[in-house]
Structure formats: C-alpha cells, structure tokens
C-alpha cells in the first residue's frame, strides 16, 4: 500500500466515522435517557438526505439543503415522538424497538411515495481538493470531519454547561429523581428526541453528496450503525465517538487491503469485543428505572 493511498484511506475513514458518529449519537442519547432503541433515527437520516436533494435543487445551494434537512429531520422526529413514542416510554426495550422499526419501514414507504424509487444524485458542494503530503484530498471530506468535531463540542457543552443538558445527564442516571426535583422529564425526552432526529438529518444531508440518495439508504447503514453502538456501548457518548471512528477506519482501511473486509471486519471486531466485554467498550449497566 502506498503512502498516498494510506493517507486518503485515513481521511476517508475519518469522514465515514464522522457520519456514523452523527447518526449514532442520537440513538445513544435516546437509549441513555429514555431507555428506548430508536431505529427510526435511520429514517431521519434518509429524510435529511432527500430534503438536501430537493431543497438543494430548488435553491441551488447544497448547504441550504443540508440546513433544511436538519430542520425537517428534527421536525419529523418531533411529530413521531408526539404521535408514537409519547405513548410507549414506559414499555420494555424490545417493544420500543419493534415499534420504531415499524416507524422506519412506514417512513421508507412515505419516502417512496414522495420521491419514487429512482436513486437521486446530489452535487458535491465543494469540489476543490487540497494536497496533504502529496495526496489529493477532497475538502468536502475535511469539512465533514470538522462539522462532526463541532457537533461533539456542542453536545459536550450542552450536556455539561446548560441546565437542560445537566438535567438530561441526570436523567440518564435516574429519571425518577429528576422528576422528583420538579423537572418535566417528558419535555426533556422531547428535546433529546428532536436533537437526535436533527443530528441524524445532518448526517444524511452530509452523506447525500457522497452517495446516491435512494429509499433504502437508511437500511443500508443499519448494520454499521448497530455495530458502532454495540462496540461503543449503548448510552455512552464517549464510547460512540471512539467506536464510530474505529469502525470508520476499519471499513476504509479494510477495503483498501481486501474489498469484502469493509463489511466483515467491523463485524469480526464487534464479536471480539463482545467476547471480552458483553456491554461494549464504554457501555453502562442498565440502571433501574
């Protein structure tokens, strides 16, 4: 493997990891606070990508499209939370998982209804390249990595420096005590869910120019998102960060060595980690509700 290939592989892995991170952070937050596995985050990912396509086509700027994708992703999450999840927070995990899968499939149907089955291309907003150690690297990928870093810092500040964020963190430890302090936990749930949906929408919007946008795109990344969540441990943001970049690198560098490794190597790593640590790298014990 030449040096140039290696460097571009690393950058590719980092940008892929950024997308994974943006998607799984929502899943992880929802699990931590509400004890639900919200598979419908993958729906907001597809919605974000499609909105990026449509609005980008309409306004001529992909960035406006991505912003719209974030907003629509969050709005869709709000609607779903109000209609479906509000009723099932007190149910057990498998129940929420099946229900959210229903939302995901139904949502894919809605997407097919509006946009049809044909894959849609989205123009890359920045076509320019930079040279790093003699390697051509698309600036857009670097921008994705930067945005993911900003989001991580933003989430960290939100959870550690604001009252609502602190309440959310307290809620992941013990919801009943938070409720006992007079905080409306259902509003916290809504806020968390909308943030998660918006971030998934952002991931979809950022990913849209790199792939063809098609109705099944959410289901295609499903396995990777799951592997990231399992390796990092459910409910841990630090774990999500570490494992998404780990999986991103494994996919990227693995495919450079031998193409099918891209899909199978992360799975092998996941099995290994589960053998040693059944709750993932940073997974918490399931605290009592």
């Amino acid at each position: 493997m030449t040096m140039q290939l290696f460097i571009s592989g690393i950058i590719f892995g980092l940008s892929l990891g950024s997308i994974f991170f943006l998607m799984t952070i929502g899943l992880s937050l929802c699990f931590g606070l509400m004890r639900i596995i919200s598979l419908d985050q993958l729906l907001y990912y597809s919605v974000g990508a499609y909105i990026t396509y449509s609005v980008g086509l309409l306004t001529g700027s992909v960035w406006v499209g991505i912003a719209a994708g974030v907003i629509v992703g969050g709005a869709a999450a709000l609607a779903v939370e109000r209609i479906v999840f509000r009723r099932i927070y007190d149910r057990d995990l498998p129940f929420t998982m099946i229900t959210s899968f229903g939302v995901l499939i139904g949502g894919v149907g809605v997407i097919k209804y509006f946009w049809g089955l044909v894959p849609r291309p989205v123009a890359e907003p920045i076509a320019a390249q930079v040279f790093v150690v003699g390697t051509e690297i698309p600036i857009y990928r670097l921008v994705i990595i930067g945005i993911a870093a900003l989001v991580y810092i933003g989430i960290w500040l939100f959870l550690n420096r604001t009252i609502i964020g602190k309440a959310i963190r307290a809620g992941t430890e013990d919801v009943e005590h938070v409720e006992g302090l007079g905080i409306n936990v259902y509003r916290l749930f809504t806020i968390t869910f909308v943030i998660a949906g918006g971030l998934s929408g952002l991931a979809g919007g950022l990913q849209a120019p790199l792939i063809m946008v098609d109705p099944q795109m959410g289901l295609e990344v499903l396995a990777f998102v799951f592997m990231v969540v399992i390796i990092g441990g459910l409910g841990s943001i630090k774990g999500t960060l570490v494992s998404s970049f780990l999986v991103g690198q494994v996919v990227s560098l693995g495919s450079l060595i031998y193409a099918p490794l891209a899909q199978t190597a992360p799975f092998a790593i996941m099995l290994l980690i589960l053998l040693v640590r059944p709750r993932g790298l940073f997974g918490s014990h399931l605290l009592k509700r």
Partner: protein
Amino acid sequence: MSFVRWWWGLVLAFALLALARVFLPLPFANEVVIFSIYTMGCNYLLGRVGFISFGQPAYLAVGAYAAAFYLFYFGSNPYFGLLVGIVAGVAVSFAVGTLFVRLRGDYFALVNLALAVIIFYVMQKMLAGITHGDNGLWFLTNLDSTPILDLTRPEQFFIFAFIVAFALWAFFKYLDDSIFGACCLAVKTNEDKVNFLGYSNFKIRLVAFVIANTTTALAGAMYAVYLGFVSPEITSPARTADPVVVTILGGVGTLYGPLVGSIVYTGMKDVLSKVFGNWELVIGFVLVFIMLAGEKGIWGTLAPLFKKVALRVAGKAGDGR
C-alpha cells in the same frame, strides 16, 4: 381428554389442507406454509424466551445456502438437501448462540441484525465465486424426483410442507407443556429465580436459541428446495424484520399466531402490492398500529372471542341434552 384434543387438531389440520388446496392458488399456499415455519422460530424466541431477534433471515440464509450448496455442487436428492440445511442450522446457531445468548436483550437484538446483514454481504460479495453473487444459485433442474412425495412438484411439495409444519406445530405445543417450556417462560420472567432453582440460564437459553433457529434454517432449506433457487436477497437488510412483523401481526407467543400472521402477511403482500404498490407504508403503519393498540396481534385478539363463542355453543348443547 388430551387425546381428543390432539385428534381434533389433526382433523382440523387435514380439513385445512384440503380447503387450502381447493380455494387458494398453490404458490400462495406454499408460500404461507413455509413462511409460517419461518415465523415459528421467531415466535418461540419472542413469546417464550423473551428474545427479540431482528436477525432471523441470517439463519434462514444459512439453511437455504447449505441446502443450495449441496444441491448445486454435490448431490441431487432434495430430502438430503433439507437434512444438510438442518445440520447447518444446528451447527451455526450453536456456534453463534454460545456467544449471543450471554448478551442482554437489547444487545442481542442488535447483534443478530448485524449478523444478518453480514451474511448478506458475505454471500453477495465475499463468496461470490461460490454463490454467484446477486445472480444466485439455480439448481431446479438438478433436483431428482423422489418416491412417495415428489418434492420437485409443487402440489406434492405442499403436502410435505404441510406435514412438516404440522409436526413442528405439535413439537412446539409439546415444548410448551414440558418442563423445558416452563423453564423458558421462567427465564423470560425472572432469570435470578431460575438460577436459584438450580437451572442454568445459559443452557436453557442456548437450547431454546438452537431449537428456534434450526426451525428457521429448515424453513430456509425448504425455500431453497421449493424455489430451486437461492440468492442473497433472502437476507437483505430490507427484509430483516419480516418474521418479527409476522409474529406481532399474528400474536406473540400464541400457537396459531405464526399461521394466521403468515396468511395475512402474504395475502396483504400479494393483494396490496398489486393494487397499491407501496408495501412498506402499509406494513409499517399496521405494525405501529398493532403495537399501540396493545400488541396482541390478530390471533391474540380473536382467540378469546372464539373461546367465548365455543363455550356458549357448548353450553347450549349441554342444555339441549
């Protein structure tokens, strides 16, 4: 008393068999029977052991590909192909199960789904030389016609599939009444107490896992023999939830649930995809609706009604005498 009930079950089953042959088109009937076998495993895991598995297609693919490899490369006897599928199912679910059943419920569901998708990629890309990738393996012409029940002919395959489904149904009914079935339910409700009673959680779960997924692998092998064709499509990410959806649709943990669910699901798929064309939308909303409406499913809702009617009829008959 129990003898009478068994006997009635058999009569009912053969009446159904005759009815299905007369009223339903053969491909549809075959599809329903295989699908209900496919769902039985998932139903057992979800309803009796409390495991939700979004990865059932993984085991379906194991059975299907094992049978397909045998029939494509080595032999030509469909019965033997089915056997190979079962053996592969036992081997894989045992190997995977020792690792998976130790996991907490949420991780279990996620890991299974990941396994299904990985098997999809392995079959589609990594082993493309052997599996012919997306084109799939075609071996319908390789199949020998067999004596007694000729599996290469759809109408005789239906009888065979029906007998298998009925045997499995009886087997799961037997499991429910056995100590092992009680242990499974106990594990679902409270693991710690099962431990106190001196049973091994791990072993109970492993055996249940192997039984359920071998059933699924058998369904996969039957698909392979019936269609004479296997492609990675059977484990594609878009189809991972099928058995869970059907289980929920029919009613979790009920004996007839898988059959009712398969009939409704396959029927809806056939009819609606012709009329409406947007299959996902319907099934997604039906799933969410059933979950919000109390997750009892079709059979779970109907069964108490039937019982009430039957009791009333029986009561009247008693009065008349």
